[in-house]
């Protein structure tokens, strides 16, 4: 696929690098000459040294044939304008904006930018994952599916302790891959009874996450 990235700061640079490594074609637009040069030295001829918020440079970067334009500068107003111009001038089918101030997520939605990424929100979700109280950790989504990998600990005072895996009543389409008990892996046979401190590795449809959480609480 072809992606145009606007803004060559840390986020833009590493995103470009990752997309190239994944075999995609990219063009990165960066207005600072020295920064553009630095990126070109590291990633090759994939940099346009120009302001991304001017339509003609978006055209020069080939936005008309881009599968997506991703605006990741440090300035929210610039990211908004870059995405709007890409939609209006180049008919880009998908635009994604980085939102530096999380308050602007609602604003961007109201102004027609559907996909936004807020680093604050991403960090918050990571922190929430590590809260010790939960014992329920969505570990990662599985690429190319609507499934995710979940790790769940059987806490004290939860009704799931003493039950069999079968009796948990997990939603359909969910599989328990294994049970970690005192550092050993046990097969999640139907007759094994769960103990406090057991950790279950579960594959589940992302949409059923809440239901899985409920079954284990």
């Amino acid at each position, binding site marked *: 696929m072809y992606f145009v990235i606007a803004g060559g700061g840390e986020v833009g640079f590493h995103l470009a690098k990752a997309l190239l490594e994944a075999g995609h074609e990219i063009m990165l637009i960066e207005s600072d000459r020295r920064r553009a040069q630095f990126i070109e030295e590291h990633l090759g001829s994939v940099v346009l040294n120009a302001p991304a918020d001017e339509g003609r440079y978006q055209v020069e970067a080939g936005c008309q044939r881009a599968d997506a334009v991703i605006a990741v500068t440090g300035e929210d*107003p610039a990211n908004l304008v870059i995405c709007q111009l890409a939609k209006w001038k180049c008919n880009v089918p998908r635009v994604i904006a980085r939102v530096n101030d999380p308050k602007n997520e609602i*604003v961007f939605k109201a102004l027609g930018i559907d996909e936004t990424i807020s680093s604050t929100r991403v960090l918050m979700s990571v922190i929430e994952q590590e809260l010790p109280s939960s014992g329920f950790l969505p570990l990662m989504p599985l690429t190319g599916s609507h499934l995710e990998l979940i790790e769940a600990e059987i806490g004290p005072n939860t009704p799931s302790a003493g039950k069999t895996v079968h009796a948990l009543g997990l939603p359909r389409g969910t599989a328990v891959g294994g049970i970690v008990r005192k550092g050993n892996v046990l097969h999640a046979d139907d007759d094994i009874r769960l103990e406090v401190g057991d950790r279950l590795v579960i594959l589940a449809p992302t949409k059923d996450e809440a239901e899985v959480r409920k079954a284990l609480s």
Partner: protein
Amino acid sequence: MKIVIVGCGRVGAFLAGLLDSGGHDVTIVDLERGSFGHLPASFKGTTLMGNGTDLEVLRQAGIDKTDAFFTLTQGDNRNLMAAQVAKQVFGVKQVIAKVNDPIRANTYRKHGIVTVSRTSILGTLLEAMLMGDPEVGKVLVEKARAHEAEMAEQV
């Protein structure tokens, strides 16, 4: 009229002064306190320190009840964002954005935001003055010079 202006640079302060002396209720917003030094000493309106694209700051400026909204900061993109917020989020009827890049000014005008480009207006005016074109900007220049004279007297 109740009027909110974002950006207290030379243009914002000049307009705020004009409207204020014309008896309107003006609130002017800027990120930096020092910018309010551009306002004429006679200014009786409200100054508010904050980011003019921030919903809370705009609410504080009274955007819910404003008749007109001008966004006149140095950044074209910031002006375009503030103008769209005023128009689309708060439903302000009269919204005008200063956009110095003539091409962006044209694009956003086609998408319903009234934009004014200093570049194209001043450029067009200067060409007309050089060519002795009597139509273009005669009234504008006379009015502007009158305002300048008033300001000079106040100092």
